[in-house]
């Protein structure tokens, strides 16, 4: 959409930090001509909690509960990324069962996170019902997490050297039921929302991010894949047991409009959910009895050195850059947040859209402010 010739004064609107569709305390300063956006500037920092400084003050293992609070809708994936980074520094060997469990809960959490993204995207576009359908299924996943680690949101489950507990016996049947339910539910979501004509019209050709632009701005995850770039760290830089698992990397193909529009990004998430359901089932099949924690990892002191490790969270590439001075605490910990990089493209693609499209755009980027601000 090209910017119309301006006929009136510029209006400055603050979208947020108290706004239903900014997914948290994001403030976007909009300069508009009527409803057409001329300029969008995201203002961050309302949820800044100094995660990186915290890491220098608590023990290596004590950082994990803080990683829960970065991307609080995909806490398992954050735990996973941090633990892999520390283990890379330590050179620890992880027991087989623990590895499978980690991938299992990460994929479950990916489904939960994408369900939330799907549901809230429905609300952003104005359909409330898909949100509650998504929460119905997400609730089952949270129940599973409650069984395996005792918490429903901030799990602290994946630890340095393994996972905190083994699964209770009721986990596996419930998880298999979830797999069945999800396979029925995703077509229902598609019928209810994805292929609804109003929804398609609202998201088609809106917020198009061409592949080069997405790469140039450092977008990762579904935002990058929605633009048609097949880049998934689980495939391209595999970690843990991902090389042994079979799954596809869905990318945006521009089925209803241009490649890289909001609908593509949205659809990539739904298709990733299908893949994650398959991954969960494969992990369940691979579960063999065994220890879930490597020996000698209760209180760790990684050797002097630095490490960078990146993992694929539901929102993209989450990287931990950790410097150790050989002590009980980290010397420095830097997080490469996927949401932060994805959000930065907002000011590039928003101009020329309507305010209603702005909502669709923010929703399709699927930010979690806890991770943007850390």
């Amino acid at each position, binding site marked *: 959409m090209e910017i119309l010739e301006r006929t009136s004064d510029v209006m400055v609107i603050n979208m947020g930090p108290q706004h239903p569709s900014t997914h948290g305390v994001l403030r976007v300063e909009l300069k508009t001509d009527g409803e057409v956006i001329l300029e969008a500037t995201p203002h961050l920092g309302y949820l800044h909690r100094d995660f990186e400084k915290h890491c220098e003050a608590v023990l290596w293992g004590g950082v994990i509960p803080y990683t829960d609070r970065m991307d609080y809708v995909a806490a398992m994936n954050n735990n996973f990324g941090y633990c892999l980074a520390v283990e890379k520094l330590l050179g620890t060997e992880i027991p087989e069962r623990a590895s499978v469990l980690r991938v299992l809960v990460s994929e479950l959490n990916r489904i939960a996170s994408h369900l939330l993204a799907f549901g809230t995207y429905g609300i952003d576009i104005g*359909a409330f019902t898909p949100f509650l359908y998504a929460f119905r299924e997400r609730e089952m996943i949270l129940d599973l997490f409650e069984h395996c680690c005792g918490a429903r949101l901030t799990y602290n489950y994946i630890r340095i050297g393994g996972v905190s507990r083994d699964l209770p016996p009721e986990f596996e049947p419930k998880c298999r039921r979830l797999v069945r339910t999800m396979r029925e539910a995703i077509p229902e979501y598609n019928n209810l929302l994805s292929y609804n004509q109003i929804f398609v019209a609202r998201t088609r050709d809106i917020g198009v991010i061409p592949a080069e632009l997405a790469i140039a701005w450092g977008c990762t995850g579904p935002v990058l894949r929605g633009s048609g770039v097949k880049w998934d760290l689980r495939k391209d830089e595999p970690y843990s047991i991902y090389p042994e698992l079979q799954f596809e990397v869905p990318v945006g193909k521009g089925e209803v409009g241009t490649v890289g529009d909001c609908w593509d990004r949205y659809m990539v998430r739904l298709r990733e959910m299908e893949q994650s359901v398959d991954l969960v089932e494969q992990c369940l099949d691979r579960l063999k009895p065994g220890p879930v924690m490597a020996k000698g990892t209760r209180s760790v002191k990684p050797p002097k050195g630095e490490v960078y490790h990146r993992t694929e969270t539901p929102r993209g590439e989450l990287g931990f850059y950790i410097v150790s001075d050989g002590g009980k605490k980290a010397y420095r910990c830097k997080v490469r947040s996927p949401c932060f990089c994805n959000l930065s493209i907002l000011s590039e693609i928003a101009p020329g859209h309507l305010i209603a499209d702005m909502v669709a755009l923010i929703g399709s980027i699927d930010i979690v402010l806890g991770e943007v601000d850390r």
Partner: protein
Amino acid sequence: MFALAEALKMDLIPAGLALFAENVTLIGWALVALAGGLVFANGIILYRLKTMGPTLPRMGNTIQLFTLQLMPPALGRLLLLAQTGAILACVGMAVPMLMAVPVPAFLSAGWIVPRVQAIPTWIVVAIIALVVCKALLGLMSVYVMASGWVERKVSAHMQDRLGPMYVGGWHGWAQSIADGIKFILKEDITPAAADRFFFKLAPYIVFAGAFAALAALPWTDLVSSREIANLQEAGKPLPPGVIAADLNIGILYILGVTSLGVVGIIMAGWASNNKWSLLGAMRSAAQIVSYEIPVATALLCAVVMSGSLSLVDIVRDQGTRGEILGWYCWPWVNPFMGIALLIYYVGALAETNRAPFDIPEAESELVAGYHTEYSGLRFSFFYFAEYVNMYTCSVLASCCFLGGWYPNFGSPILGAAVLGGKALFLVFVMMVLRWTLPRVRVDQLMYLCWKVLLPWALVCLVGTTVWVVARG
């Protein structure tokens, strides 16, 4: 309304009709006088409230509020606002009554040169008018509360939830009453930078616009379609239907007063001095003004079919064609009317700001649109107006396309139930649509109106006209 008083004796109807026609102007003026009296009474209440110091309780425990001495101001406030609503309803209904009488009758009714013997009748009719106004207001309040509860339950069950389950015991039936109490007790905030006069006036205008339409909405008929056909054959005048004011321009009047709401909405959005409200108001203006056209065009099809603008005549025409098989929407009656019904219904959704066309109050885009800054009872006026508008639109659709109160088998009560059932079913469909569909964008809304609905509405209108002329 006269029919309500004298309905029991059918032979009195013609005489009563004449009496009513003579005095209908007086009723209108009586209502205006009554409204003036209420304004005066409200002034006294307002003065009393002001002298009582801090009148409005902050948000808090409702029970606590009731047991504390906050009760009197809260009650006073309830009275104040309820009476303001009553005034507006009275004024709204007096207007059509003033319009209902031709000028000679207006003069001969004797309000300039009062006839002594007319005075007792004047009083009787005024009282009846007042009762009808209040009854409509009460009925609509009950309807709004009930449909508010139903909408919550419907949406909840569609979404695998339970909805309100606590207040009142059985499935939370009293939730709407509790909400009403909450609305009354909430602090009435006027933003510091708002245009105070228009900010306070706007909800009343929206409310009055919605309620004034009720004056010309029919409820049921006292005679069966067979009797009507007989009377028509004999060339005798037909008895009036049960309707507050059977205007000969009924549809036009309803379309006119319901679009009063948009004035209130623009006023609200502008006076709030909030950019989101302003955007909502601007959207609403564009939306309602545009959608009036396909809506009116679709309704014109029914007018063409019946040859009358009076809703009672339109429904009776369908009844004489066949109580069930004669509805206008059937393809054998007229193949275009089904499409016209669809166009009307889509347009009505947009006119009442219901999803998927609720862009003026799109909560995910504009926070709450034009009523962002409203709280408490002033907000509830908008809420009331929305539900009353839904009902009005549904009754219009039922009357113009779906046979109104037919089949009533000659029973007025059954007829009222049938009409109510049809209207409530359409309201239910509106609710289902709201909880199923996403929201369209402004430009798509305009596209739908001007490039889809309007051309097809015109096609229907022309088609209906040709059909009527061709069939004779």
